[in-house]
């Protein structure tokens, strides 16, 4: 139907033979360029420095496009007027709009025009990398392990790698040079790449040069000092450098203003930093002393690390107390958890051996989240195993007596308490570091080891993307700025390399630190900027667990109406407790907090309210280390000042959208009509917002925690380099899910795969080392026909989903496997599955024979069909393990399946024949009849051997069949056609006295057997004696039957034809025209192939009949 072809749009224009107008034009331009080049070369000196380089200029540049074109002409390069993804290697631009960037196809390098100028000035091809406008290199990440082919194969490269051997001190000296060099174009020999022998002499020269340069700029003095310092450093003793250093900083508080300069500088240092991958060895060497120098005198410090410190001058002070500080006592001990970045071994990537276990031993979120669920389960356990008495209440009563408090004035009513430890991680950590009390302290992974610097553009790009996405979400542009501001706060700060750009998040910080503007979840880099004397301590998961357990035990000794939220937070329904002990809430709080403090040494805050929401808000008010009871009469006023973002269920997204409609506090929210809220947020969220803004909350404490899903998800370090890695990672995740399922004694039915895929325009390198960067999320799920907790099945399904998504694995940045639709895994199930395992061989036979149960996903799950398969031997041990009802059922099944072979001889042939008989039919017969039928079957089998039967194809393979797997394949097919066969011998031999047996027999046949066994899930309402051809069958399953039918016999048997007609009629009745067409098509094909006149006749009759029927029904002829 699509007729419009490309050619139609472009009428003939005479350029066809050159491949169209544009191609012709391009070719001509190229020729002109060449001609121009040769002409120019006569007039001016030329070189070949750009040979092999092709550029395309985009937008306004200095030097201009014309000048660049001329330069390319003169120096052997290529200049493209039109960008071509395949030919153009470089795009020269001084600024590229996002839209333009997006349009670029292929992988050209976008380089600043300065590169051309510098190359010409230097009369050699310089490395373009320092000139990249946008690069994929992230600042903070060392370049590790990623197999990246260096695309730039110019000789410069070899220079660069030579540089590996240069000590980093030299790199340091060369960096400012590069920075200056950009300003001073006339310098010729300043590239960091060629003077690999940078020496003190050249440094001196440079100093002079730098001074002259800097004198031009207004803020030259700081920079000058700065660079001088660096140069000094090389010449003088390292000790001097460091002692000088603080002075230097004090003198130049404005250094930070120099940031643009520094950024330049950084861009250049990037060159050196890029080599990190190869320089790993060197780096490690330097890292080692760093860690050891904690107690050493300062003079040990000027390791190569220092170059970072220099560059990020303003932040150095921060650094010192941590790694090289003079006060060793104050520094925290090195974290116990190995940190990926500092690991001696390179960071593992997903898909590599043990990645997951390592990840889970490092991931902070994992620890915290598992603690939350662990405590939910813990409370469940406590409740289950509770003896009924609460020892804590005795204490409470005693305490009340001692303090002389009574419950006077407390009227009762519903009271929910929310209890939350104050900056949990910090206060737990401080137990081990009492000396840090009173100082700003944060808990974080990073030890403040300076991450390598890198160029800022990719990080910049990433933040830009986050910002854009956030704005897109808002939809309305109105008041987006408002929110953007908040976002900006998080994003605006982009470290310029150095340690202060650490992207490590602060898990928790104490109130002293918060006073300085720090918040949980802030990046360490920014935190250090805000609060330079911040002390960091490492995670101590064992201690967290200990304190949490103590917290829960304390509360559980008082009441069990607890809903665990996380390791340090819970809701307690105190209504009963307070009534029974006759205590006022605030007295109770005093008691509980004192208890907790006594046991754990950590402060906790409690809030009381009539519901969970109020309790939570009260806690917020109570913090730090306080208590607050939100009385019902105060609620409305109290809520008014609450920010909407503090409400439960209001995340960044909802908050953002609320801002967009001008709502910031609950007061605003109260004024907003329910209808408006529901319009914006949907009925449910709208209603809950409406209620929450009035302090109403109908959530009930979830006392009995039920797990809804079990998952394992990783979005850190996911970089696959091949599919096998991806698969292995999926398997690892699935194994983790299995472990967790087993721990929770659950099994699930729905496998969900979650993928985070690098967003299309996201930079290759993420701002956070090995983080996921800007991503699109995908999730796909599949429901299995039966519950499972088997990692293999989960992995297989998940992998299928991965394939289904069809996204390149190299773009994956995060992956998760989740099981939902959970059900309890009973003990019996293990026995059952073992039992089913035994029964598996026959079942797999069965399912190969065709037709999986209707569920389309069932391929994965043989279990369903297995249950009906005939088990060869019944495992008594397993049977004993089963619950009574299941055992009965199994036995019943077993009996049904077995009797024929039980009664008949074990002869192979007999068994085969017997297995074709519907066992339920046999079972229904009286014993004597049964025996007769069995005998008859055996007789007929032997007969079949010698008498010429219509289905040689069926009989012969059966005899030769040794492996039962193949055998069953043909069976139902044969069965379909066999009807007459058996009937015929029967008519001759069976005693006429039992006509009913006969008819029944012919009717049921073993089709029924095979169908009922193979397709146990076929709808119940379908009559069983329908034969092998069932309306509900899938086309794929039907066709082989038909093929076999035509193939197997020289002439069609009349019964079979009738059967077929009946079947077609049935199909028509149920309107399955597609199946009719498919059947007829197959018939036609096979009959034509067969070339037998008899068949053709039959076939034509069949067609005629069918067409007639179709016509009657639809008024048209079927086309097939």
């Amino acid at each position: 139907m699509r007729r419009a072809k490309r050619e139609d749009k472009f009428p003939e224009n005479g350029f066809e033979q050159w491949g169209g107008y544009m191609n012709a034009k391009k070719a001509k331009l190229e020729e002109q360029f060449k001609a121009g080049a040769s002409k120019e070369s006569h007039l001016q000196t030329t070189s070949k420095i750009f040979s092999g380089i092709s550029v395309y200029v985009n937008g306004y540049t200095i030097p201009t496009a014309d000048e660049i074109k001329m330069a390319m002409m003169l120096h052997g390069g290529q200049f493209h007027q039109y960008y071509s993804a395949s030919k153009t290697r470089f795009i020269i631009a001084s600024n590229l709009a996002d839209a333009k960037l997006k349009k670029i196809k292929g992988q050209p390098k976008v380089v600043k025009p300065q590169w051309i100028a510098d190359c010409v000035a230097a009369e050699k091809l310089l490395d373009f990398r320092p000139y990249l406008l946008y690069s994929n290199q992230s600042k903070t990440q060392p370049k590790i392990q990623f197999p990246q082919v260096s695309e730039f194969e110019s000789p410069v490269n070899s220079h660069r790698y030579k540089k590996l051997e240069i000590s980093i001190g030299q790199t340091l000296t060369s960096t400012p040079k590069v920075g200056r060099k950009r300003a001073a174009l006339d310098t010729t020999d300043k590239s960091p790449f060629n003077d690999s022998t940078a020496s003190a002499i050249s440094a001196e020269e440079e100093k002079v040069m730098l001074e002259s340069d800097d004198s031009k700029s207004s803020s030259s003095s700081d920079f000058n000092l700065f660079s001088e310092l660096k140069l000094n450093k090389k010449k003088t003793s390292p000790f001097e450098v460091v002692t000088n250093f603080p002075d230097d900083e004090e003198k130049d508080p404005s250094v930070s203003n120099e940031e643009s300069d520094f950024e330049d500088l950084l861009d250049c240092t990037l060159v050196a930093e890029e080599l990190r991958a190869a320089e790993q060895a060197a780096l490690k060497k330097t890292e080692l002393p760093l860690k050891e120098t904690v107690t050493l005198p300062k003079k040990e410090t000027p390791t190569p690390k220092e170059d970072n410190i220099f560059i990020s001058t303003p932040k150095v002070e921060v650094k010192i107390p941590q790694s090289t500080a003079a006060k060793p006592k104050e520094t925290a001990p090195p974290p116990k958890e190995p940190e990926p970045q500092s690991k001696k071994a390179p960071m593992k990537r997903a898909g590599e051996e043990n990645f997951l276990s390592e990840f889970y031993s490092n991931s902070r979120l994992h620890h915290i989240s598992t603690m939350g669920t662990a405590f939910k389960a813990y409370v469940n356990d406590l409740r289950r195993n509770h003896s009924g008495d609460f020892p804590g209440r005795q204490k409470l009563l005693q305490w009340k007596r001692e303090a002389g408090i009574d419950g006077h004035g407390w009227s009762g009513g519903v009271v929910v308490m929310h209890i939350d430890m104050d900056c949990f991680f910090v206060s737990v950590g401080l137990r081990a570091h009492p000396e840090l009390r009173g100082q700003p302290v944060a808990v974080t992974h990073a030890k403040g080891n300076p991450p390598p610097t890198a160029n800022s553009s990719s990080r910049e790009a990433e933040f830009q993307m986050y910002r854009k996405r956030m704005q897109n979400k808002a939809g309305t542009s109105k008041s987006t700025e408002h929110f953007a501001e908040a976002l900006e706060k998080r994003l605006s700060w982009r470290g310029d390399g150095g340690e202060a750009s650490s992207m490590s998040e602060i898990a928790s910080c104490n109130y002293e630190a918060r006073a300085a503007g720090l918040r949980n979840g802030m990046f360490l880099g920014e935190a250090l900027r805000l609060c330079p004397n911040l002390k960091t301590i490492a995670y101590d998961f064992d201690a967290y667990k200990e304190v949490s357990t103590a917290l829960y035990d304390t509360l559980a000794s008082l009441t069990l109406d607890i809903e665990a939220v996380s390791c340090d937070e819970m809701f307690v329904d105190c209504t009963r407790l307070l009534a029974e002990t006759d205590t006022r809430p605030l007295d109770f709080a005093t008691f509980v907090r004192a208890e907790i403090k006594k046991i754990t040494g950590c402060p906790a805050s409690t809030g009381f309210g009539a519901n969970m929401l109020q309790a939570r808000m009260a806690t917020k008010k109570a913090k730090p280390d306080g208590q607050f009871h939100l009385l019902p009469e105060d609620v409305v006023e109290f809520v008014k000042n609450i920010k909407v973002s503090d409400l439960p269920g209001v995340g960044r997204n909802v908050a953002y959208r609320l801002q967009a409609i001008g709502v910031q506090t609950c007061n605003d929210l109260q004024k907003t009509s329910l209808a408006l809220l529901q319009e914006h947020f949907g009925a449910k969220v709208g209603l809950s917002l409406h209620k929450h803004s009035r302090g109403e909350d109908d959530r009930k404490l979830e006392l009995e925690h039920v797990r809804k899903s079990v998952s394992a998800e990783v979005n850190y370090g996911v970089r696959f380099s091949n599919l096998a890695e991806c698969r292995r990672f999926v398997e690892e995740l699935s194994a983790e899910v299995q472990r967790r399922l087993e721990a929770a004694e659950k099994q699930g039915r729905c496998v969900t795969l979650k993928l985070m895929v690098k967003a299309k325009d996201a930079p290759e390198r993420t701002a956070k080392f090995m983080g996921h960067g800007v991503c699109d999320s995908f999730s796909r799920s599949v429901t299995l026909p039966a519950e499972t907790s088997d990692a293999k099945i989960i992995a297989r399904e998940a992998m299928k989903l991965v394939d289904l998504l069809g996204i390149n694995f190299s773009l994956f940045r995060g992956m998760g496997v989740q099981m939902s639709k959970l059900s309890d895994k009973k003990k019996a199930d293990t026995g059952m599955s073992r039992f089913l395992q035994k029964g598996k061989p026959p079942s797999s036979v069965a399912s190969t024979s065709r037709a999986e149960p209707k569920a389309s996903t069932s391929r994965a799950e043989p279990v369903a069909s297995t249950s009906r398969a005939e088990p060869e031997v019944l495992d008594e041990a397993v049977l004993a393990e089963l619950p009574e009802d299941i055992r009965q059922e199994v036995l019943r099944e077993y009996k049904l399946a077995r009797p024929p072979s039980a009664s008949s001889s074990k002869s192979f042939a007999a068994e085969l024949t017997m297995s074709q008989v519907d066992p339920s039919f046999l079972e229904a017969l009286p014993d004597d009849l049964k025996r007769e039928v069995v005998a008859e079957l055996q007789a007929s089998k032997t007969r079949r051997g010698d008498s010429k039967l219509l289905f040689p194809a069926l009989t012969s393979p059966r005899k030769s069949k040794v492996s039962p797997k193949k055998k069953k394949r043909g069976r139902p097919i044969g069965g379909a056609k066999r009807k007459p066969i058996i009937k015929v011998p029967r008519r001759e031999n069976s005693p006429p006295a039992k006509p009913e047996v006969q008819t029944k027999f012919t009717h049921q046949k073993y089709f029924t057997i095979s169908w009922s066994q193979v397709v146990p899930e076929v709808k119940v309402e379908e009559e069983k004696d329908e034969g092998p051809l069932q309306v509900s069958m899938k086309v794929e399953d039907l066709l082989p039957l038909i093929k076999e039918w035509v193939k197997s016999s020289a002439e069609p048997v009349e019964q079979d034809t009738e059967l077929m007609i009946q079947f077609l009629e049935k199909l028509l009745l149920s309107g399955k025209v597609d199946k009719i067409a498919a059947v007829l098509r197959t018939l036609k094909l096979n009959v034509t192939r067969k070339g037998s006149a008899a068949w053709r006749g039959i076939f034509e009759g069949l067609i005629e009949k069918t067409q007639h029927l179709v016509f009657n029904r639809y008024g048209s002829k079927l086309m097939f």
Partner: protein
Amino acid sequence: MFQNNKTSTSDPCTGRLLEFFEICINQLLYLNKIYPNGVFTKKQKYGVPINSCDHPLLRDYVKKCLLTAQDLLKNGELSKLVVVFISQDGKPLRRICFDLERVQLQAAMCKDNLTRLELQLRDALLRLSVCDRQLPPIPEGCTFKILLETSEDSYLKMCQSCSTKAQYEFLWVQSKERSHENYLVPISSVECANCDFQIFAQEEKKDSDMLSTSDFPNIEAGGSTVLSDVSEEY
């Protein structure tokens, strides 16, 4: 999309079906080039790229038809939904027929089945999108109609109950059995629990060695069916 119309469709299965029909109708219009490609925007449903027409008049027409269909479908009284393509001289050239006689949506569908249904709908949609392989392109300048087929009983029932609902008053006419030479080309089918239907095309015979098909010979074949003839054209 149709499913967004939450207020009107309570049953998720009906909603999905109607949405499917809407997509199919749009897709058919696109495939048969009833309107210039420019009026269609590319979208995705079930992960399948689809083309939907944004013209308000057309959307309105389709929506009205489907709202009517919805009422019938809910009661299991919609026997067919047909998209007819009519040549410039008024001859029906092609009927794409959704044979819904066995769709019974009264019983609520379980979640699994809904997922299965979606998979099947996706499959059907994919097949429909490539049905131009089986069907020759129709000449330019054709128009289309949407026909709904139901039984006389339900028509009468509807007349009584629907008297208030004037919003989608379409002209209902007695259907004529058409029995001249045409071909039935199965396109796809959906089989899922109680939602079981076929999609097929009925194609005019091209080489007209038979009498010209300006008018259909009427053969009343049993079942009295009522056909809604929706004759808004664009």
